[in-house]
C-alpha cells in the first residue's frame, strides 16, 4: 500500500501529468501517420526522457504507447491504411463505416473500445504481475536460461514468414550482444582493436537503426507513391461520443473476450498488437449472430480489433515486470529506459522498486484516460495529420533518430554504428528476415549468458537443465514452439502450392 501511494504521488504531480499529456498527443499524432509505427514513436521519445526521473520517463513512454494504439485507428478508419500493423483488422469495418457516411461514429467506437481494452488489461496486469514476480524470484539460473531459450524460440518462430530466418535473426541478435566486454569477467570480445566496438553495440542504437532507419528507408521505396498525396474522407464528421459510449458498453462479451485475448497475446513473447487485433476480430466474427455483416461496417468488428490491440499494452508488461523478459520491441525499449537510469529489470523489480511498478500501473490507467480526453476533444484536429506527406516526414524523423542515438552517450561513433546498422536492417527487411527476434536477441543475450555461466559455476552438471522440472518445461515448450511453427509452415506452403496449381489443373 505504501508503494502504491508513493507511486501515485510521483505520477500525480503537475509536471508528470503535463509530460504524459504531451506524450499522449505525440503518440496519437505519430501513429496517425501511415508508416510511422508505435515502436518508432517510443524510440524517438526515449532520448527526451533521459533527463527525467525514472518513473516520470516510463509514464511518458506509456502515454505514447497507449496513445499510439489509438492513433493507428485514425488512418485505418479514414484512409483504409492501417497507421500501425496493430490496426489492420480495424480497417475491415471502420473504413467501410466511414465510407458509408459515418466516419465520426467509426472513430468514436474505436476510441471507446481502445479505452476499455487498456483499462481491462491494466486490471489484469495489477493482479497477475506481482504473483508472477514472487514465483520468478524462486527460479534459479537454470530456469532463467531455459526461459530465455523459450522466449527466443517462440519469438523467432511466431514472427515473420520463415521459422529458420526468424531463428537466425534471434541468434544474430545474441551474437551482436557478445561484442564488447563479457558480462562476468570483463574480457574483451570481437572488438578487433576498433575503438567503437570496445564498448559493444549500445542497445538503443541497434534498436533505432534496426527499426526506425530501416522502416523509414522502406517508406521511400515507391517513387510514384511518395510524390503523390492521399486525401482524407471529406464531409461532416459527427463523433456522437456518448451515444457510442453506450453502444460499446452494450457489447460486454465482445469487449471482455477481445481484451482478455489481447492481454494473453500481449503476455506471450513475440506476439503483440499486430496479431491480437486479427485474432480478436476473427473470434468476434465466429461468435456473432450476423457474421455476414463483418467487413461492411459492423460495430462489433471495430470493438474487437481496437479492444484487442490496446489490451496487449498491459499484457506485454506482465512478463516484463514479473520476469524481466520483454515480450515485444516496445517492452524492450521500456526495459532499456529503466536500465539507462541504472534500474535492473527482473523479478526483483517489484520487491526492490515497488513504488516504480505500482507507479507504472497507475500511469497505464492515467494514460488511457488522457488518451480518451485528448481523442474526444481534439479528434477533429488530428484528422489533418493523415494529410502530412511522407516526403516531409522521412528526413525529419531520420534527424530525430540521429539525435536519439547521439543523446544516449554523446558519442559521434554511435552515429556511425547507427547508419551501418540501419543499412544492414534495411537489407535484412528486404530479404524477409523479421527484425523483432534480432532486437530481443540483443537485449536477452547478456541475461542468457550470465545465467548459463552462473548455473555452471554453481554446479558443472549440465543435466540440471533437464532434471529441474521448471527448466525442463521451458525447454520442452521451446521445442514444441519450433515444431508447431514448422508444422504450420509446411501446412501453409502445401496450401499455397495447391492454390497455385489449381488454375492449371
Amino acid at each position, binding site marked *: 500500500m505504501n508503494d502504491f501511494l508513493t507511486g501515485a504521488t510521483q505520477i500525480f504531480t503537475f509536471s508528470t501529468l503535463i509530460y504524459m499529456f504531451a506524450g499522449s498527443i505525440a503518440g496519437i499524432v505519430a501513429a496517425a501517420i501511415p508508416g510511422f509505427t508505435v515502436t518508432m514513436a517510443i524510440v524517438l521519445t526515449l*532520448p*527526451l526522457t*533521459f*533527463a527525467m526521473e525514472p518513473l516520470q520517463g516510463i509514464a511518458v513512454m506509456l502515454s505514447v504507447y497507449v496513445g499510439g494504439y489509438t492513433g493507428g485507428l485514425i488512418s485505418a478508419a479514414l484512409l483504409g491504411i492501417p497507421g500501425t500493423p496493430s490496426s489492420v483488422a480495424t480497417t475491415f469495418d471502420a473504413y467501410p463505416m466511414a465510407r458509408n457516411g459515418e466516419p465520426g461514429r467509426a472513430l468514436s467506437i474505436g476510441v471507446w473500445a481502445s479505452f476499455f481494452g487498456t483499462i481491462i488489461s491494466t486490471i489484469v496486469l495489477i493482479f497477475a504481475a506481482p504473483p508472477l514476480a514472487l514465483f520468478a524470484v524462486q527460479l534459479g539460473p537454470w530456469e532463467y536460461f531455459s526461459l530465455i531459450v523459450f522466449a527466443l524460440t517462440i519469438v523467432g518462430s511466431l514472427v515473420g514468414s520463415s521459422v*529458420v*530466418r526468424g*531463428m*537466425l535473426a534471434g*541468434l*544474430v541478435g*545474441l*551474437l551482436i550482444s*557478445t561484442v564488447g566486454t*563479457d558480462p*562476468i*569477467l570483463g*574480457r574483451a*570480445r*570481437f572488438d578487433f582493436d576498433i575503438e567503437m566496438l570496445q564498448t559493444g553495440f549500445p542497445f538503443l542504437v541497434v534498436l533505432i537503426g534496426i527499426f526506425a*532507419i530501416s522502416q523509414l*528507408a*522502406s517508406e*521511400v*521505396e515507391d*517513387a510514384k507513391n*511518395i*510524390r*503523390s*498525396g492521399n486525401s482524407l474522407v471529406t464531409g461532416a464528421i459527427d463523433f456522437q461520443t456518448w451515444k457510442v459510449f453506450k453502444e460499446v458498453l452494450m457489447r460486454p462479451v465482445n469487449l471482455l473476450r477481445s481484451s482478455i485475448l489481447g492481454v494473453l497475446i500481449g503476455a506471450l513473447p513475440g506476439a503483440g498488437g499486430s496479431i491480437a487485433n486479427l485474432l480478436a476480430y476473427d473470434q468476434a466474427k465466429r461468435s456473432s449472430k450476423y457474421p455476414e455483416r463483418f467487413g461492411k461496417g459492423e460495430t462489433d468488428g471495430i470493438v474487437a480489433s481496437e479492444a484487442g490491440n490496446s489490451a496487449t499494452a498491459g499484457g506485454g508488461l506482465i512478463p516484463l515486470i514479473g520476469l524481466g523478459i520483454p515480450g515485444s520491441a516496445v517492452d524492450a525499449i521500456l526495459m532499456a529506459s529503466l536500465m539507462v537510469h541504472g534500474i535492473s529489470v527482473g523479478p526483483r523489480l517489484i520487491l526492490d522498486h515497488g513504488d516504480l511498478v505500482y507507479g507504472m500501473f497507475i500511469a497505464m490507467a492515467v494514460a488511457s484516460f488522457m488518451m480518451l480526453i485528448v481523442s474526444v476533444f481534439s479528434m477533429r484536429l488530428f484528422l489533418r495529420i493523415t494529410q502530412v506527406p*511522407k*516526403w*516531409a516526414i*522521412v*528526413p*525529419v524523423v*531520420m*534527424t*530525430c533518430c*540521429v*539525435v536519439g542515438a*547521439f*543523446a544516449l552517450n*554523446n558519442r*559521434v561513433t554511435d*552515429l*556511425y554504428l*547507427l*547508419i551501418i546498422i*540501419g543499412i544492414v536492417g*534495411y*537489407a*535484412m527487411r528486404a*530479404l*524477409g*528476415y523479421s527484425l523483432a527476434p534480432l532486437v530481443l536477441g540483443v537485449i536477452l543475450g547478456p541475461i542468457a*549468458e550470465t545465467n*548459463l*555461466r552462473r548455473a*555452471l*559455476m554453481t554446479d558443472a552438471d549440465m543435466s540440471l537443465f533437464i532434471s529441474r522440472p521448471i527448466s525442463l518445461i521451458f525447454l520442452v515448450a521451446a521445442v514444441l514452439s519450433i515444431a508447431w511453427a514448422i508444422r504450420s509452415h509446411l501446412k501453409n506452403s502445401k496450401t499455397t502450392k495447391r492454390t497455385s496449381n489449381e488454375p492449371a489443373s
Partner: protein
Amino acid sequence: MSNLSHDKAMEAGEIARLLSYFIILIASVGLFFAASEIPTSRFETLGAGAFPQIVCAAIGLLSIVAIVDSLRKISYLGYGRFYTEVKAWMCRRYLVFITLGALALYILVIPIIGFSIASMIFIFSVQVILMPRNTKSIVIALITALVFSFGLNWLFSEVFTVFLPRGVF
C-alpha cells in the same frame, strides 16, 4: 507485374537470401574460431568465449539448413537472370539508396560542420529530392528544415541540457 515476372523476381529474392545465408555462415565460422582464442578462466567451467561459440555453432547449423532449403527452391536458369533482376530491383528503389546515402553523408559531416547546419542541409535536400516540386512544397520544406535543425538544437541544449555536436568552425 505479370505472373512470370513476379516468379522471376521471387526467384531472384531467394538467390539473394541464399547469398545472405552464405555470408552469415562464413561470419559465424570466422567468429567461432575468433571466440576460441579468447582466454578461459580457472574460476569457471565456461570461459568468456564459450557463449559466443555456442551461438556461432547454432547460427552455422541453421545457415546450412537454410542453404539446403534454399537450393531446392532455385532453378538452374534463375542464377543466369539474377544480375538483371537485382539491377531492376535496385532501379525501382533508387530513392532508398539516395536517402540512405544522404543520411550517411549527413552523419559524416555532423562532426565537421555541426548538427544545426548539417541537419538543415540534409532535411531540405532530401525533402526536395522526394517531393512533388512546386513553390508551396519548397516553402514547407524550408520551414521544416529550419525548425528541425536549429529548433531541435535549441530545444536539446536549453531544455534537456544535451549538447549536440557544434562542428569545428
